[in-house]
């Protein structure tokens, strides 16, 4: 008899239906998988056979042909095991079920018949829902992840035998209960807080502005100034993720296989710190399986590039496109994938190779050409996408020992959320979400200056040697400062403050 079970396969963060056809033929015992299956799928032969045998079913001694349709797309991964095993049992009439065709079956098998966790449950289910499916059989280890999706019936099992019993109607199993996102989000807190950062007032203010307007930021300072610590605190002042945002992030993390199965959803904004030896595929996504890269894992969160000039120039340049349009495009031989990658870039660097340039306590030992080479590793177009550049210095001993309570992340976050609300109202109906994403036309409309502001900006450019490309950046940052100030128009004091956050534009670096 021919059995036809349904499963799903991943292409990036989108899934597509795979029909698994199992046919038992007369002939010498054999097991053939057709339909462009990769090694992991082909190896399912051994897992499926042992799992069936060890679940006390009979493995058919016949010629087994398995076809994965559509037959012309490459399929990878081990999550077809369960669908194949159930298909064999149905074809062999070990299981008599009329309902099995309603279910999308996902799961990897262990030799003893246990169903193992798989990658990508959330994106697979979401794609299936979009295609009109509503019933699922999944590994119980992935149950948490699937439980956040409402309006569907998900059945989670530990053993092949349990799933078989369920399909035969021998056992009554309740579908998973939907988990409440809000309560989970409240339980999970960040491990750092801005109140632990002593001193560094101006840097904290700059980060507040950066988060409020969705701007990218570069921290410049000597080693030990606390750049990394402050960067880690950035997610703590970002507005809480909405359920939709959390789902977006969870889908990517699920595909990458780094999801925490005990929580099942990403509630905290991601904070990713790829090492400076990271390759282009590691950052952008790619590799044999076209996995999402660090920039996609940082989607809706923070990508922190520590010691930015140490990264390979080529690697940094690839960031330009995603910074612009918020997606990472991965091209493989036969397909092109798109992963979302809308992240806030927080970068850090030393002012010079030895790190002591401009320090009051240490002497810089770098030659001018060394400093020049170091700074010029950051290309103009990349710096163009970083709105705030702020210098931080090592904090003084007094600050370090000070017991004065610093402002907590929660109170900074409250201000950020207010400013974000103003921006949401302003950009309603357009694609823009934050000040950083403003188009040129929007800059002209929303960043109009009064006469005093115009004069100030003009003076700033001539007197302070600001480069021309800084102009729009200053305006956007000034818009955010005005929003934090709940001011309808940009006043000259907002411009004046924004100018302070353009350190690298000042030509005193020569």
């Amino acid at each position, binding site marked *: 008899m021919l059995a036809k079970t349904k499963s799903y396969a991943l292409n990036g963060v989108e899934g597509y239906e795979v029909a698994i056809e199992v046919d038992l033929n007369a002939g010498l015992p054999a097991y053939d998988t057709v339909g462009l299956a990769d090694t992991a799928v082909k190896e399912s032969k051994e897992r499926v056979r042992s799992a069936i045998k060890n679940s006390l079913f009979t493995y058919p001694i016949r010629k087994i042909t398995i076809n994965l349709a559509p037959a012309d797309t490459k399929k990878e991964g081990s999550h077809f095991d369960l669908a194949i095993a159930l298909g064999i049992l149905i074809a062999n009439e070990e299981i008599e079920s009329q309902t099995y065709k309603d279910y999308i079956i996902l799961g990897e098998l262990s030799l003893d018949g246990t169903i193992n966790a798989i990658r990508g449950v959330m994106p697979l289910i979401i794609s299936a829902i979009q295609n009109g499916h509503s019933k699922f059989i999944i590994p119980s280890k992935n149950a948490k992840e699937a439980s956040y999706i409402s309006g569907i019936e998900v059945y989670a099992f530990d053993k092949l035998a349990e799933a078989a019993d369920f399909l035969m109607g021998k056992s009554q199993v309740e579908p998973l209960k939907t988990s409440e996102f809000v309560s989970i989000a409240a339980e999970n807190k960040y491990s750092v807080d801005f109140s632990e950062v002593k001193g560094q007032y101006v840097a904290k203010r700059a980060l507040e502005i950066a988060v409020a307007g969705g701007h990218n930021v570069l921290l410049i300072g000597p080693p030990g100034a606390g750049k990394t610590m402050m960067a880690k605190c950035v997610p703590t002042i970002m507005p809480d993720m909405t359920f939709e945002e959390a789902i977006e992030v969870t889908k990517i993390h699920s595909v990458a296989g780094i999801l925490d199965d005990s929580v099942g959803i990403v509630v905290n904004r991601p904070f990713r710190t790829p090492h400076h030896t990271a390759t282009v595929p590691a950052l952008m996504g790619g590799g044999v399986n076209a996995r999402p890269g660090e920039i996609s894992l940082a989607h809706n969160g923070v990508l922190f590039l520590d010691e930015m000039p140490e990264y390979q120039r080529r690697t940094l340049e690839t960031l330009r496109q995603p910074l612009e349009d918020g997606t990472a495009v991965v091209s493989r031989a036969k397909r092109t994938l798109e992963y979302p990658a809308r992240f806030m870039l927080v970068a850090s660097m030393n002012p010079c190779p030895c790190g002591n340039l401009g320090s009051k306590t240490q002497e810089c030992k770098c030659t001018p050409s060394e400093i020049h080479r170091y700074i010029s590793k950051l290309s103009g177009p990349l710096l163009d996408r970083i709105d705030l550049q702020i210098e931080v210095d090592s904090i003084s001993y007094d600050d370090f020992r000070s017991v004065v309570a610093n402002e907590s992340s929660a109170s900074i976050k409250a201000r950020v959320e207010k400013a974000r609300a103003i921006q949401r109202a302003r950009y309603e109906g357009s694609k823009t979400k934050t000040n950083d994403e403003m188009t040129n036309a929007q800059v002209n409309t929303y960043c109009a200056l009064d006469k005093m502001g115009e004069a100030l900006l003009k003076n700033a450019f001539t007197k302070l040697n600001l480069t021309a490309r800084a102009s729009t950046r200053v305006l956007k940052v000034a818009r955010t400062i005005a929003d934090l*100030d709940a001011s309808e128009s940009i006043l000259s004091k907002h*411009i*004046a*403050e924004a100018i302070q956050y353009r350190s690298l534009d000042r030509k005193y670096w020569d």
Partner: protein
Amino acid sequence: MTYSNDQKALIMLSATDGYNARKKRFESVDRPCELYDDYTVADNMIAKMEKSGIKVLTIIDEDYPKTLKEIYDPPYTLYYQGDRSLFNSNDLLAVVGTRRVSVYGKNIMQNFATAFIKSGFKIISGLARGVDSIGHRISLENDSPTVAVVANGLDICYPSENADMQKRIAERGLVISEYPIGSKPLQFHFPERNRIISALSQGVFIPEAGDKSGSLITADYAIEQGRDLFVVPGNIFSPQSAGCNKKIRELQAIITLTPQDVITALGKVAKNNNVEAIQLDFASQAIIDILKDGALHFDEILQRSSMNIAELSGILSQLEILGAIRKLQGNNFEIIPLI
């Protein structure tokens, strides 16, 4: 422009390495054209030079600058781009110094170079990093013609980050080299070109120079060629001022404390360099008072003032634009001293 065989011979001679070697060959014949039989090399070079607008003056030309002819080792060729009338200008003041300028040196340059230009001087320097670049930059900013003497062929730019500056000087001033196109900035070129800087100038001003600075070679040439040498004394512990202080101890230089010292010594009238009195509001004055004792970090100013970050950032920017204070590396601020 057509060149005579004598001129072509000198162009070809300029490709010989080392001044003494050139001198020997030049003096071995009565007329330079006796040195070579075939001038295709020179013709090729001239064709290339014309494409990039490079011209040449040779020592046998009538308008070869007198100031150079008088020195012991005048260059046989002067390749140039720009305004040739500057060769014979009586207003050239050499401003040279360390490549690693300290904040002190930058302050001196900002004050002195501007005053020199306002009094009618034109700055001649070597297009190197540090003091040289600052001198040229201030000239360009003040629309004052400036002269750069480089140590390589004019088709090359060294240091490369000054390429744009070199182009602008060629448009509004004069770029000079003793070396033919294609010459690299070799180590021994630099001391050789320094004699041209001092010879073309009325005096040599050194704001900051380290113990081994190349600008001290220019200083020695200045004394040998009978030009006035002006140096600014510096902190005895600062390596960037060691060379200047040494010249003072050796009693070879005029101690310079104000721009007027240079200006009047060279027979010009000092123009008032003072910025108009700046009207400050109460808040700005408070910040100036805080900064009176020296440079402070933003966070330190914040702690000593009663303002919040937003207000303070705004006021600091405004003071910067007014020219009352300046931002230093590391987010430090200081008052701009006026002399």
